[in-house]
Structures are given as structure tokens and as C-alpha cells.
């Protein structure tokens, strides 16, 4: 099986440039003497051609945010030897302070592209448009599942709050849009009406929990227009998709993230969601020598999420084992933030709330900018508040529940 179906097309909405086999060949020649490819991944034809060239030559690729500095990461992951199954390495969070990589095999990447394409019913008639960065696992998964089925992917870089994006949606007759929760908040603000963009038949949602009210609203809107909304659940560690909620079950399974991917299953072990499937990573890497390691998980992923399964196998996520948050779809380890800044952090819906003892408004603003830069996220995802004294539990530890309740 090949990720790139011969009929697949990739077109740049601005330049009109297309992906061609000869372009992939040309970049393949450039990569010939590289063992491991560190690839900054902007949303361009050239970056996608390089990426596909590396995959075809069986050279593992580390996908990187093109706007960030990766000198430290590149130095850390120099490798003399890489495992022959290793195809793709992705970072697990926006944080530059903790550059742990997820090791994905070629077969896991292909398996998940197939699982996603099957559960969404992607065909060669589909047209996707970029709505998320390609170095981010959800954005990459949209590319993979469409290339696999010989569909079309339109490259667009301005985003859904701009006229150019919607002009491209209509001009290229885009059929499928993929968004994370904050983008659904934007769509609501734009009073998105699928009837005004009749080519759009599919909306997908992943990258964190979308509030039930918005799931219902967009599901009904799509239904009325003859389209569908797919709620999905995943982690980069699963290449990345683990579950999809069939659109016709949204109404009676509201709050569920759906059923396990085809050929996979969920179990709850000590309250933790455990996923078994062909798309589970080989393991993490924390140094260059780890890139020579083989599969350490045997297809079993302990997700770190707490959850329950109903009698039909629908999964409901109820919390996290570790103190984690998500900001704009990107995972954030709250303890990491606390180790790097003199603050206390709790997670809100798509927001990081930070408490600092007795600081001025100016200092709070500066701290917000610093934390957001460190996380590689937008400043509006970080909220800094001054607090007289942190609430404490009887054992002297921070009372995080009380802080969350004060939001």
C-alpha cells in the first residue's frame, strides 16, 4: 500500500502550483545521502513533495513547525542508526522545553490513513482544504487520508476568519473541512451556513473536547444541508486517530467520542482508556539513540485519559490521569509549565489559566507573552491572574480544584 494514490492531487490555492511526480523525484535526489530528515513543514507544495519523497525512500522524517527554532531538537536527535520500520517523528506538544518525539512506523501511518479514510468515507471525489498546520497530527491526518484515496487537497494559509479562505472553499468546491474546538467557536461567530457553501458535505472535529451545545448545533446544521459532522478522538501517539462518532449516533450519544477505529478496540483498565490497534506508535524517543529502537508497545496504547465505555462500545472521556490541558488543540503538560515559571497553572476549556501571587497588571501581561512564546501558542490562550494567596489543601499542597472553581 502506498500513501500517495496515483489520482491524488495537491493544489496551492494562491499560486495555482500542483504537486507532480517529478517534483517528488527531484527532492528524493536531494535526500539521497540523509539518514534522518528534519523537515520544517509550512503549508506548501514544496514541503509536501519533500515529505512524500522521504517517506518513499524510507527515510524517517521529523516534522517541525517552520516558525520555531529547532537547533536544540536537531542537536539532540542526531542518530547514527535508525530503525528500518521508523517513518515519522512528531512532537507531542507545542512546548519547546520538552521535545519528546513520538515514533511512528510506516505501517502505523498507513493503517491510520486507511482507518480515517474508511470511517469518514473519503473517496476520490473529495476535496479537503488545509485548516490546520501540517506538522500537527490532525492536519497531517487530513492530508494522509485524502492522498490515500486519490482525493484532492487544497493548500490555503490565511484561515477561516478571512475572505480568501471561503473564496477558495467555493472555487475548488471543497467537500470536507477539519477543525479543532476553537475553530468551531469561530464558525459560530461567523454564523457558518452550509447552504452558502453547497460543496461542503463533511465537517470533522478533533483536537480536544467540543462543548455539547456546539456539537448539537453543527450536527443539526450539517444534517439540514444533507451533510455530516464527525466527532473524533485521538492522540499523536496513535498516528493520530482512535475513535469516530458516526454522525447518525450523535444525537443519542452526545458527549461520546465514538467507536474505536476499524480493526481496533478500547478497554478501560484501572479507569484508564487503553487502545489496541495497528496504528499505535512504536514508543517515544528522548534522544538520537532511541531512534534505533524497535516497537516497544506491541500495539497497546495507555492513553492517560480516564473514561468509560457504554454497552455498545461508545467511549466517553471523563478526565486525565496527569495534569494536562489543551490550548487551541495542542496538548500542554501543566506541571511542565509550573517547572519553568513561578506560577500555578490549571486548565480551562481551550485555555491555560495561570495564577501568580501579587503581580501587577504589566507584569501579568509580560508573563502571559513569555508563557505563550514558550508554549508556542497564541497569547490569547493564556490567562494570567494575580492572586493574594494560593488556596491550600490540609496537606499543604495546592488546591487545584478550588482554583478551577474560581475561574
Amino acid at each position, binding site marked *: 500500500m502506498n500513501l500517495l494514490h496515483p489520482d491524488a492531487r495537491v493544489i496551492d490555492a494562491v499560486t495555482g502550483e500542483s504537486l507532480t511526480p517529478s517534483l517528488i523525484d527531484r527532492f528524493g535526489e536531494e535526500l539521497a545521502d540523509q539518514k534522518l530528515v528534519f523537515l520544517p513543514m509550512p503549508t506548501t507544495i514544496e514541503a509536501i513533495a519533500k515529505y512524500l519523497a522521504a517517506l518513499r525512500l524510507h527515510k524517517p522524517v521529523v516534522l517541525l513547525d517552520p516558525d520555531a527554532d529547532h537547533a536544540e531538537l536537531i542537536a539532540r536527535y542526531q542518530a547514527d542508526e535508525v530503525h528500518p520500520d521508523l517513518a515519522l517523528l512528531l512532537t507531542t506538544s507545542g512546548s519547546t522545553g520538552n521535545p519528546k518525539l513520538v515514533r511512528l512506523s510506516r505501517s502505523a501511518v498507513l493503517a491510520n490513513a486507511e482507518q480515517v479514510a474508511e470511517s469518514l468515507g473519503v473517496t476520490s471525489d473529495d476535496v479537503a482544504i488545509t485548516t490546520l498546520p501540517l506538522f500537527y497530527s490532525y492536519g497531517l491526518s487530513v492530508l494522509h487520508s485524502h492522498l490515500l484515496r486519490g482525493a484532492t487537497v487544497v493548500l490555503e494559509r*490565511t*484561515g*477561516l*476568519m*478571512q*475572505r480568501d*479562505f*471561503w473564496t477558495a472553499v467555493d472555487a475548488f468546491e471543497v467537500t470536507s473541512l477539519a477543525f479543532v474546538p*476553537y*475553530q468551531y*467557536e*469561530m464558525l459560530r*461567530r*461567523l*454564523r457558518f451556513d452550509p447552504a452558502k457553501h453547497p460543496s461542503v458535505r463533511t465537517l470533522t472535529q478533533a483536537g480536544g473536547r467540543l462543548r455539547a451545545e456546539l456539537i448539537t448545533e453543527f450536527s443539526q446544521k450539517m444534517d439540514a444541508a444533507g451533510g455530516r459532522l464527525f466527532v473524533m478522538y485521538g492522540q499523536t501517539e496513535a498516528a493520530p486517530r482512535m475513535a469516530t462518532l458516526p454522525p447518525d449516533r450523535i444525537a443519542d450519544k452526545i458527549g461520546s467520542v465514538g467507536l474505536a477505529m476499524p480493526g481496533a478496540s478500547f478497554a478501560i483498565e484501572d479507569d484508564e482508556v487503553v487502545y489496541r490497534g495497528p496504528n499505535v506508535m512504536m514508543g517515544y524517543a528522548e534522544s538520537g539513540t532511541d531512534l534505533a529502537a524497535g516497537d516497544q508497545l506491541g500495539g497497546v496504547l495507555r492513553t492517560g485519559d480516564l473514561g468509560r465505555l457504554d454497552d455498545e462500545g461508545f467511549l466517553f472521556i471523563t478526565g486525565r490521569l496527569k495534569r494536562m490541558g489543551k490550548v*487551541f488543540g495542542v496538548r500542554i503538560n501543566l506541571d511542565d509549565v509550573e517547572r519553568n515559571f513561578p506560577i500555578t497553572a490549571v486548565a480551562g476549556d481551550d485555555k491555560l489559566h495561570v495564577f501568580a501571587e501579587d503581580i501587577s497588571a504589566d507584569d501579568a*501581561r509580560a508573563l502571559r*507573552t513569555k508563557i505563550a512564546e514558550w508554549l508556542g501558542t*497564541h*497569547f*490569547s*490562550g493564556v490567562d494570567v491572574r494575580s492572586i493574594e494567596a494560593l488556596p491550600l489543601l490540609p496537606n499543604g499542597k495546592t488546591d487545584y480544584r478550588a482554583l478551577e472553581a474560581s475561574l
Partner: protein
Amino acid sequence: MSELQRLRDAFRTALDLPADAPVDDLRYQDNEKWDSLAHMSLVAAIEDEFSVMIDTDDVINMSSFDEAVRILGKYGVDVK
């Protein structure tokens, strides 16, 4: 405060710019802080400041400070 000052302040707040930052020549994505997230904050700030409800077409057309001035004019806010 004049309408122009109020609009400049709305831009500075939404884009997290210093209180004296020049904003009159700003264009979407020329400034690295003006992305889709900041755009949503900006539209909300302008709506609050001028007590208007901006239509979808105007939201996605508001690609520069000058455009914001023009659009506000449609809602009866004369920015000068």
C-alpha cells in the same frame, strides 16, 4: 475619546500591542500577531467598543485597519 482613538485602542488590545504602537497601517497577517485568533478578539473588541453587531461578510473582509474604518462607517460609526 475620539472614534479613531477608540478603534486604535481596540486593535492594540486585541493584538496585544503596546499602548503607543502605531496601528493605522496594519494589515492582516503582515503583523505576526494578527492571525485568526486575534481576528476573533478584534471583532469582539470592536463590537463591544462601538455597540455594533458586525455581519459575517464584514468580519471576513476586515483585513486591514483601513478596512475596519470603512466597515464601521456602514454601521453608522464615523471614524476620524
